[in-house]
């Protein structure tokens, strides 16, 4: 649609009330929605961090140790703690919405939402535990 229509006598202006840029701050549900939308920034940030880690790993043992030392800075710890909150928020809202996306049926009956959500959380827990087991240790 044309954003700047030419107004003539025979083409009156559309009546549209301007929505405030801060519309999402009015209601708790709207605020949660925008927080969920902003989780994508943390997701992208984590990809950048991962690419930096792979780059350091390619450079050799010394560069990798330097990278690990860099992660110990209070600024990075704070940034990563905030990002972890957002990434967790993304995961939880994502799994809670899973039954809406997966309308699976078994013998003609729809599988209850609780079952789909629970199996997602179960798989998440298993994958997370596997990653901790794989990446930590002497």
């Amino acid at each position, binding site marked *: 649609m044309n954003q700047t229509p030419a107004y003539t006598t025979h083409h009156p202006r559309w009546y549209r009330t301007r929505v405030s840029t801060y519309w999402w701050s009015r209601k708790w549900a709207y605020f949660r929605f925008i927080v969920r939308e902003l989780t994508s920034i943390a*997701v992208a940030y984590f990809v950048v961090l991962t*690419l930096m880690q792979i780059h350091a790993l390619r450079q050799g043992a010394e560069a990798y140790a330097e990278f690990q030392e860099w992660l110990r800075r209070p600024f990075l710890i704070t940034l990563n703690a905030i990002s972890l909150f957002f990434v967790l928020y993304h995961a939880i809202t994502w799994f809670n919405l899973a039954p809406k996306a997966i309308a699976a049926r078994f013998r003609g009956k729809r599988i209850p939402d609780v079952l789909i959500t629970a199996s997602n959380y179960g798989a998440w827990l298993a*994958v997370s535990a596997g990653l901790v087991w794989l990446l*930590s240790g002497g």
Partner: protein
Amino acid sequence: MIRRSNEPFLWFLFSAGGVVAAFLMPALLFLNGLAFPLGWLTPSRYENTLILVKHPITRLLLFVMCSLPLFHWAHRFRFTLYDGLQIKHLNEVISFLCYGGAIGGTALAGYLLWNIP
């Protein structure tokens, strides 16, 4: 003639990236961002990490974990700007920067993971 929209494909990438991010990122960010730097857990040694990352399956997983979530970000962030800041007149520029960033990040991930010395 019907003009096909590429929105379903972009939404598919958004959705797939969301799944990958939800399953893998919390644990990895917890480990690399907090648990290892703060000494709650000990990371595996450089040599072992290198062997793990060099494995083709790990490299493929890392590539997927970098690429799809970037498209997830591109799609969601585009609409955050669209709805949140109401800058609809910049739609083309925003789309270009978001999806362009995702494509660039994917290319970089491919380059870094193609072969690890």
